[in-house]
């Protein structure tokens, strides 16, 4: 604080509170809608205080899903999302960790070539190679499977960069000491590098978990079987044409279920989340 200007401080608080209120409003309305009956939502305007159907709506969503053509229990979808998010996060961390270890701690032919190969994937997001990637996965027989959902997304240039940057800051003396003590490269990796990388791994896990949970286009393409839908896809399939046909109370309960796990991860692991966000963009 450079100088004391009470009025400006009041204005600052007011702007922040107004901003937070506007940003939280869609979430609040979603929550309220998830506690009402469908009739209450369809009467315009819908009430803005929570109703008493919280338990009914959520248990219906989890066990049966919205009634209609594409009814599938959201419980199963949440499990699919969880598997996808965790597998993508752990997979990215695992293969990027060993790849950057190889690039930093070894000298070998084609080292730079491999590094650039990984780097270039930054320029090829799924969205620009939709159909050929779908064909590859389909030819490999991976449609409607967890492998098909996760494997194509686990290559990661950002994670490789992050670990490379981090390994470069590990003091040379540690590698030197290990070599003098006769430890091989893998021993050094498991006993020194891995324990030191814990915070980077945690930060990356938070970011990649959210990335995996929120995937949309890719699961939309590779899952046709309702039992393999992720929850984000499930919501979309529940919304039928026309406002009145959709079972909004169950859809809104599903929306809450879809956004709570990643939001909880962000809020509870705030420190790692911010660290991960800033470091992956370096």
């Amino acid at each position, binding site marked *: 604080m*450079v100088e004391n*200007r009470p009025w400006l*401080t009041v204005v*600052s*608080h007011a*702007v*922040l509170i107004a*901003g937070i209120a506007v*940003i*939280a*409003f*869609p979430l609040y*309305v979603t929550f309220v809608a998830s506690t009402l009956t469908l009739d209450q939502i369809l009467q*315009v305007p*819908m009430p*803005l205080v929570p109703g008493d159907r919280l338990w009914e709506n959520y248990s219906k969503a989890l066990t049966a899903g919205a009634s209609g053509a594409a009814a599938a229990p959201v419980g199963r979808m949440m499990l699919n999302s969880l598997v996808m998010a965790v597998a993508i996060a752990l997979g990215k961390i*695992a*293969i*990027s960790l060993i*790849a950057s270890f*190889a690039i930093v701690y*070894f*000298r*070998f032919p084609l080292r730079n070539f491999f590094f650039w*190969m*990984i780097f270039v994937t*930054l*320029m090829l*997001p799924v*969205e*620009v*190679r*939709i*159909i*050929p*990637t779908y*064909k*590859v996965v389909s030819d490999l027989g991976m449609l409607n499977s967890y492998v098909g959902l996760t*494997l*194509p997304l686990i290559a*990661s240039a950002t994670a490789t960069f992050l670990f490379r940057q981090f390994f470069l800051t590990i003091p*040379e003396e540690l590698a030197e000491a290990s*070599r003098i003590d006769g430890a091989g*490269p893998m021993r050094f990796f498991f006993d020194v590098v891995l324990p030191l990388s814990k915070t980077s791994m945690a930060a990356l896990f938070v970011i990649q978990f959210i990335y995996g*949970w*929120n995937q*949309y*286009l890719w699961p*939309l393409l590779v899952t046709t079987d309702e039992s393999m839908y992720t929850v*984000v896809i499930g*919501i979309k399939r529940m919304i039928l044409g026309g406002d009145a046909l959709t079972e909004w109370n169950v*859809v*809104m309960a599903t*929306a809450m279920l*879809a*956004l709570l796990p*990643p*939001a909880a991860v962000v*809020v509870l692991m705030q420190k790692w989340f911010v660290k991960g966000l*800033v470091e992956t963009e370096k």
Partner: protein
Amino acid sequence: MEKRVVFRSAWLPYALLAPQIAVTIVFFFWPAAQAFWYSFQIQDAFGINKEFVGLRNFADLIHDSNYLASFQTTAIFSLLVAGSGIAISLALAAMADRVLRGALAYKTLLIWPYAVAPAVAGVLWAFLFAPSIGIVTYVIKKAGYNWDWVLQGDQAMLLVVMAATWKQISYNFLFFLAGLQSIPRSLVEAAAIDGAGPARRFWTIVFPLLSPTTFFLLVVNIVYAFFDTFGVIDSTTQGGPAGATQILVYKVYYDGVKAGDLGGSSAQSVILMLIVIALTVAQFRFIERKVQY
């Protein structure tokens, strides 16, 4: 920067790199090469006959008024998303940087939208603004305006811009806050002693010093609007009405998956790849500059 102390092994580094490189080749390079190859072909509706047609798919695109309209839509959409997202987040970050009390609470309450999937964000906003039952629609209609994004193109655009911006505010906010906190206090204090008021200090000292962050966020937000907003569009307007919100990525998906035009969709993919490459290069040139700065 390189390590002085390295290990020696003829095979180990390759084994360590193998998983990453294998995934990269199978799911990135091979499909990208195929997209390139398909973009020079025309396929019949049953996928049986393929014909090599050179650059005809690209020529068709240049003359396709829908494609050119999609380019324009994408440009408007991404500028609106990036512009409004940056402006709102900067205002919030500047306020959060000022207040001492409750700073952590404000931060916590502002970062959670980052965790909401774009498709879910679309559903939330579409529900608020639903033409017949939306609560905000009710207020707008009370005020005497007609609101129906299912039929009105500009309102549909407004809806997807709001949903897409809403989700990105957290990200911009965190980077602006970090940028603001790294500005040396002594500069701001010196200006205050010279008699510059808060607004003057912000525009002549703080804002110019933030310009690397702003530029970085501009590129990131444009990339976000180009690609990651697919979920927002698909869960709300699906490119409609009459193509008013059909951004390039959505058109690649629609033409390739729904309409089955493999060659045309692949040609669009190739053009998109060139755009991503240009944006990535812009981003990295900026990072190089930041190091000197």
